[in-house]
């Protein structure tokens, strides 16, 4: 494919797909190790009331208020989950279950009870996003990357998810040591003065921001898949957290690229007529990678089982 075709039609969706996948996979590493992996699922449910409220307040489908509404709802949910977990002394999974079903139900109720039925807030959009439509019509080829007028026509999702990714990377880089120690041994972390409660909250908020930014661009299927599949597959490739993070980034990128290409061309290769959903295919690829890692990864034996030395 030459630049004239590739840059306007495929470059931006590919980049958005990769950035969204990596932005979710990075915090996903810690969430999986903390056994909080379902928080991604929870977040993609709880943002619904936020989006509906934002729509009711502004009366229009516009991205920024909806992003803010979604982020607000995600943060409310995170705080509620922590509060229920601490006050009720119950395990995080149960607290999440209570909060995300309640908020999702609240969102549906709001949607039904108010006059939003005329607008395009449908399930398909929420699940699969619209990656293929995020094209860059102002581009004429690779040279457009250097032209300001063409760059101004970039789909706004791209700078948004890129900025989110930078934020996620900065957070993990800056708090690497406390994150690692408190994920491994929370009690010890507190005795050396790490504020584990605040740090855990910050991690979940960062994950929520990634989820909302990715959700906006590519739908919730990718969010749920990317929080879990690349980190879980990466865990089976190595016994070092540093290497695990690298593998998870590789797996997330490979899923995004191969999923996007297969969705566009795969059906044609097997004689089909239409392309399939890129988001769905990206999620499928990440699942395949996880399955391969589970079958052949070098570090898939769990400790705790007796080890032959």
């Amino acid at each position, binding site marked *: 494919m030459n630049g004239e075709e590739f840059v306007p039609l495929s470059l931006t969706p590919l980049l958005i797909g990769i950035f969204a996948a990596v932005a979710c996979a990075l915090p996903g590493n810690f969430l999986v*190790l903390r056994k909080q992996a379902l928080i991604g699922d929870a977040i993609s449910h709880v943002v619904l009331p936020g989006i509906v409220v934002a729509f009711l307040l502004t009366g229009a489908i516009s991205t920024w208020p909806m992003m803010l509404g979604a982020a607000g709802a995600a943060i409310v949910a995170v705080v509620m989950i922590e509060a229920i977990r601490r006050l009720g*002394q119950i395990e995080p999974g149960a607290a999440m279950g209570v909060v995300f079903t309640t908020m999702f139900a609240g969102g549906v109720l709001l949607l039904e009870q108010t006059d939003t039925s005329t607008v395009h807030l449908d399930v398909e959009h929420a699940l699969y996003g619209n990656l293929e439509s995020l094209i860059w019509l102002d581009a004429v080829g690779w040279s457009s990357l250097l032209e300001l007028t063409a760059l101004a026509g970039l789909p706004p999702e791209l700078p948004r998810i890129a900025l989110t990714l930078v934020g996620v990377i900065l957070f993990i880089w*800056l*708090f690497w*040591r*406390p994150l*690692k*120690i408190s*994920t*491994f*041994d929370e*009690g*010890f972390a*507190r*005795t*050396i*003065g790490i504020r584990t409660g605040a740090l855990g909250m910050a991690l979940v908020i960062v994950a929520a921001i990634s989820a909302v930014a990715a959700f906006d661009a590519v739908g919730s299927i990718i969010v749920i898949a990317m929080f879990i599949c690349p980190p879980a597959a990466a*865990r089976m490739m*190595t*016994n*070092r*957290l540093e*290497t*695990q993070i690298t593998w998870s980034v590789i797996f997330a990128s490979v899923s995004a690229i191969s999923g996007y290409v297969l969705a566009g061309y795969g059906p044609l290769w097997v004689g089909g007529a239409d392309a399939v959903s890129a988001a769905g295919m990206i999620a499928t690829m990440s699942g395949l990678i996880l399955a391969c890692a589970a079958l052949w990864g070098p*570090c898939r034996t*769990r*400790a*705790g089982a007796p*080890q032959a*030395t």
Partner: protein
Amino acid sequence: MMLELAADQGVSIADSNLDDSPLAIRGLTVSYGQKPAVFSVDMTVQPGGMTAIIGPNGAGKSTLLKAALGILSPLSGQVTVYGKPLEQQRARIAYVPQRASVDWDFPTRVIDVALMGLSRQLGLLGRIRVRHMSRAMDCLNRVGMRDFADRQIGQLSGGQQQRVFLARALAQEADLYLLDEPFAGVDAATEKAIIAVLKSLKEAGKTVVVVHHDLATVTDYFDHVFLINTRKVAEGTVAEAFTAETLQSAYGGRLATAQIDQISRALG
């Protein structure tokens, strides 16, 4: 706020003029839900010795330690470390949690765990330099785990994992060492290795506090005993606090008479 509460509740004010003891606890109450796990406990750890915290299962031994370290928030009570509030003295404390409290599947190596003991010096972004590395290796050497430095921690036996935890505490170069059940489920060789390290700490003038469950070894290993069953039962030297009467009152019917006789004979 909670501290004032404790004072109001009749904890003697004279006591709260806290001395310089390595660890002083006044009026500590911790509760899970309705039932207090530790009730109004005072404890003064003597410097430069080895203290055992003993008591029946569910008596609040670990809870006492965790609350003293700020891992759990107490309902009331005051904790000082060498005469100052805990927060100012974090660098002087090393803590060894129960081995079962962490997930040993965590993707990290033995040497990385030992290096965690240096994290206060390293700070957020400090580079791990050769001197840090050699100190961590040194600590692993002291517990006989040097040859395992590159192993993933899940590949170790229980006793080896416990020794790695001890190495991490050694790397902290603290003055006060607090260990939660370090001998639980470890092999005899590890128990010996751990007690040798703890005795060397004591000889270096450090203070060691151990939550302990094996009554048979108390007289061999420790200088002081703190006996707890939700409330404090006895505190003092082994001869003072580890007697048939105090044990009877802490353990009640849970300790066979024969066992108590045996212990009193051992005590002479």
